């Protein structure tokens, strides 16, 4: 039903309609409204047959989900930033054990310095944890991705992280069509675990694997990740058929067909970028935007195809990396077609807004021959402050 509702609450209600049997909750800004709303739904009896565990830390939260999932329950938790890092040890444990846990990450910067506002550093820091990572471009997509996430997770026996921009999406109140219970039930069948803790058929889960077998185990996991790309696209297709909405999938292109410059973005910036593209097009600039919805597993082939014939791609990184470029940027670099010039910027760290005007300027600059400064161009940096501080450091004995 179409309602004017806060993103977090819509996500919580959607998750509830996915009928999780165990929810583990530990609060961290900006995810709190999700776990609070789930608690309400359990307390008033709208979410039945669900144990809501208030745990002692995020590490406890994901650990409880691991146990619950291994015992055959559909499980869910949510976190952000520091919380995601605190459960970092458990992330590859969950994926390694093939547990179809679904988790919302309300993307937030990581400290130090402590910053509670939105960027992608948290999820991206865990990109190789073996979790599927999906980035929502809007609250509607965030809601839809959770339904798809449970289907995908249980189909592939892989945990799925649904990323939604903290505060920007979680705390935005807007028009969202929250899927009805019947429709979710028709789309998401009951959980049938591949293996679980069953006294009647005891299995050993979590054995120690030595040098003689570890490589094969990891290789097979990687193959499963590859198959997940196809499965994900197929789930999105089925979702479109069932709900009449285009949500999820690997990429989200907008007006890229004949574009000279394409902005490559993840998350809610997509909406702002689409507005920027419309403005540019109205001024005769052939701009487009390509959203990456499925970040992990990385849709390299799809991205390559999407950028074919496009002269310029500008990647907006919303996380810092100390390697040869941005996290998203380098992934795009590696897979872009040879005819596409890929430039990267860092923008929107720690909640600094990525504005339509800023994106319009960026596209225009690219067409004017602008090149990034250095390995990573901090596009929205206050140069004055930066230079002053650098000079001060250099002047120190």
């Amino acid at each position, binding site marked *: 039903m179409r309602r*004017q509702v*806060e993103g977090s609450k819509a996500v919580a209600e959607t998750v509830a309609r996915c009928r999780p049997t165990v929810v583990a909750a530990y609060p961290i*800004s*900006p995810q709190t409204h999700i776990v609070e709303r789930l608690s309400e739904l359990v307390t008033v009896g709208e979410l039945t047959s669900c144990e809501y565990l208030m745990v002692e830390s995020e590490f406890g939260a994901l650990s409880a989900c691991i146990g619950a999932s291994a015992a055959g329950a559909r499980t869910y938790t949510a976190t952000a930033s520091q919380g995601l890092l605190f459960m970092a040890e458990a992330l590859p444990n969950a994926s390694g054990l093939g547990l179809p846990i679904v988790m919302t990450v309300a993307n937030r910067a990581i400290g130090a310095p402590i910053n*509670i*506002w939105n960027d992608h550093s948290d999820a991206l820091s865990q990109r190789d944890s073996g979790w599927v990572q999906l980035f929502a471009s*809007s609250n509607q997509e965030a809601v839809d991705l959770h339904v798809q996430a449970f289907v995908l997770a249980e189909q592939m026996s892989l945990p799925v992280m649904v990323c939604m*921009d*903290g*505060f*920007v*999406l979680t*705390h*935005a*109140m*807007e*028009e969202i069509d929250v899927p009805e219970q019947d429709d979710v039930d028709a789309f998401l069948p009951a959980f049938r675990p591949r293996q679980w803790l069953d006294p009647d058929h005891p299995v050993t889960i979590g054995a120690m694997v030595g040098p003689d077998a570890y490589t094969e185990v990891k290789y097979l996991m990687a193959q499963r990740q590859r198959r997940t790309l196809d499965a994900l696209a197929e789930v999105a297709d089925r979702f479109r058929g069932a709900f009449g909405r285009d949500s999820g999938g690997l990429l989200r292109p907008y007006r890229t067909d004949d574009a000279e410059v394409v902005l490559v973005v993840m998350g*809610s*910036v*997509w*909406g*702002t970028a*689409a*507005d920027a593209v419309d403005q540019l097009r109205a001024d005769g600039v052939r701009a487009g935007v390509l959203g990456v919805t499925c970040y992990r597993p990385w849709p390299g082939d799809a991205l390559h195809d999407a950028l074919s014939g496009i002269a310029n791609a500008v990647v907006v990184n919303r996380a810092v990396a100390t390697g040869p470029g941005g996290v998203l940027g380098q992934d795009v670099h590696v897979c872009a077609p040879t005819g596409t010039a890929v430039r990267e910027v860092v923008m929107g760290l720690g*909640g600094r*807004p*990525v*504005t*339509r*005007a800023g994106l319009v300027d960026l596209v225009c600059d690219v067409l004017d021959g602008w090149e990034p400064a250095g390995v990573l161009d901090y596009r929205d940096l206050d140069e004055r402050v930066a230079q002053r501080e650098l000079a001060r450091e250099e002047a120190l004995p």
Partner: protein
Amino acid sequence: MTLDVRIHGRGGQGVVTAAELLSLAAFDQGLHAQALPSFGSERTGAPVVSYCRIDDKPIRAHDPLDAPQVVVVQDPTLLRAADVLDGLAEDGVVVVNSARTPAELADAGLRLEGHQHAVCLPASELARERLGRPLPNTALIGAVVALTGIVGLPALQEAIRQRFTTATDDVLQANLQLASDAHDLVSEREHHDA
């Protein structure tokens, strides 16, 4: 048709609720709306900002408003301290929670340019009368509704009913009355000034 509203106040004055009410009212009326708080740690007394975008087309963007047509100032002490008027449209309107006049507030930081104009409303006093507490947000949103004519008072009142489901009936009625009083006050004045 778009309407961008930015609301300034201090934590505890219902700044976020104000944006939500406006967005609910717009939605009720078949428009698209998005309310965004300026997100921070939960602390009363600190300056807070919220935004409401209203449009007859679906809203995709999630960046903060940079050119609001309406700025609401729930706490006049912010006029001096914060850049509350930044980006206000050339013919934008500022709604200030104050018993003083715009001219009197000029010294307090109310600097208007071009065709911008200000409307002052003693929202806290009205709220104290009706609600028993100086919570100015519903009155101020009532004023915004009157000024812009994009959303009607009935839609706002429906939004209040939807939003304040856990309030007692007294509190709910008081808020409904407050929105209506402020709406009528401003309507008359604008009509009179026109």
